[in-house]
């Protein structure tokens, strides 16, 4: 569930309807993933899952897998 929802958000934010996310995917793998779209993606994930990230948590996100793990940590019921 988390994976599919995150993928939908990524497709919207990065304007790529065919984007398929993987756990090791990072900003180098997505053309439109820059510092601004990163922020938009983070806030959209927060809104979608009803969670809030701390700045230090955002700073530690290296790849899609990290983001999914953080969502899982904040929303264990989604497992």
């Amino acid at each position: 569930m988390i994976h599919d929802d995150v993928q939908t958000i990524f497709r919207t934010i990065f304007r790529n309807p065919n984007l398929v996310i993987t756990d090791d995917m990072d900003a180098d793998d997505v053309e439109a993933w820059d510092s601004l779209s990163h922020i938009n993606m983070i806030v959209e994930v927060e809104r979608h899952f009803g969670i809030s990230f701390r700045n230090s948590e955002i700073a530690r996100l290296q790849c899609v897998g990290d983001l999914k793990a953080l969502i899982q940590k904040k929303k264990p019921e989604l497992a």
Partner: protein
Amino acid sequence: MPMNIAYLSQHQAIFLNTWHFFIFAVLAVSLLRAFCRGIVKRLIVSVLNLYFLFYFVGDGYSFAVLLGFVVLTYGIGEIRFRWETKLPGWVPFLLTVFCWGFLILAKNPNLVSPVNVFRLYPIRIVGISYMVFRCMHYMLDAAMIEKRRMGTLLNYVVFFPTLLAGPIERYENFQAYYEQDKLLDPESVLPALHRIANGVIKKFLIADTLASLQLCRPDRSAELLWIGMFLQLAILYWDFSGYCDIVIGLSRLFRMKLCENFNKPWLARNVQEFWERWHISLTSLIRDYCFNPISVMIVRRVKPARQFPLIVLAYFFTMMLIAFWHGTTMGFFWFGLIHGTMLVLSQCTKHYILPRLGASARTKWMDGLLWVTFRRVVTYAWISPTLLLWRWGPETTWEMLQTMIGMK
């Protein structure tokens, strides 16, 4: 890097290409290969760090201030870890302002001189920008750092290979190395030595040779100035990335994998991309602890229609911070102003112009080899003259530009 003169300071450069440094490095590698476990290893790392630190820190007072700052960092880290949920949300902001204030006031004792304590008691610490940023990173992340030790923090802040000019490693990466008890993988030795050799060639053979020609000086002819101006960025790249190669290779011999500081910056198609590829450990830290918090706050709290102008201002502000981290003279102010404006223009192009082109036109024109090459050349050409400001300041830079275009 903090450069009031171009390239690494004389003090740093003199040290790096001396027998003194070579013997010190060989001794460090040998000791850490022989004693790679437990408290003995940590003791050796501490002694090496302190020796290196004493060599570069000018006096006991400066050393005491640095030590005090590290102790304060550790104390703040403990408070944040233990009482994070009870502390107000503005604490990270306050800590960020405190670190920036300390750094800028310490680097320029004449700034706001009536209240600047460093005017009366100046400190002389080579590489202070790097040390303060390591402390800032620790303070801001401390709530999430499980293993916090004063000794590890001190060694992290003053780790000798990265003391003078980075890269600015993240605390937990350093901790993983510092507290591990493993031998170096034999297969890593040759690549590490290769990396060091690359660095020596780039820094001491290419960069220093080209820099010694001094093509870019106010007393040079217009022709030499043009050549010198466009060579500056390449020389700076060979100089700084060569230095990083030496440091990264040397650290690999200690079994520590430092972060990369450069990612082919000459391939940058605009200024934003340039700063994502240049001095990455610095720009990613400023992005994570300055740009991101401001931008997240804007996107969370401001209506979508009003977000873009504020985000663009955040880009501009971030660029000014990057400039002030390097130095506080008027040259750096103008450097930040120009690069900040270029970032704003880049964002406006992305926001207002590119969406109107349509996907097919974007693919055809923007991603075509010819157009991409043109953008890379223009980016390089745009950045080159701004580097004059670092070394010569606005007045002399203006005079040099006048000479170059025949107005003088």
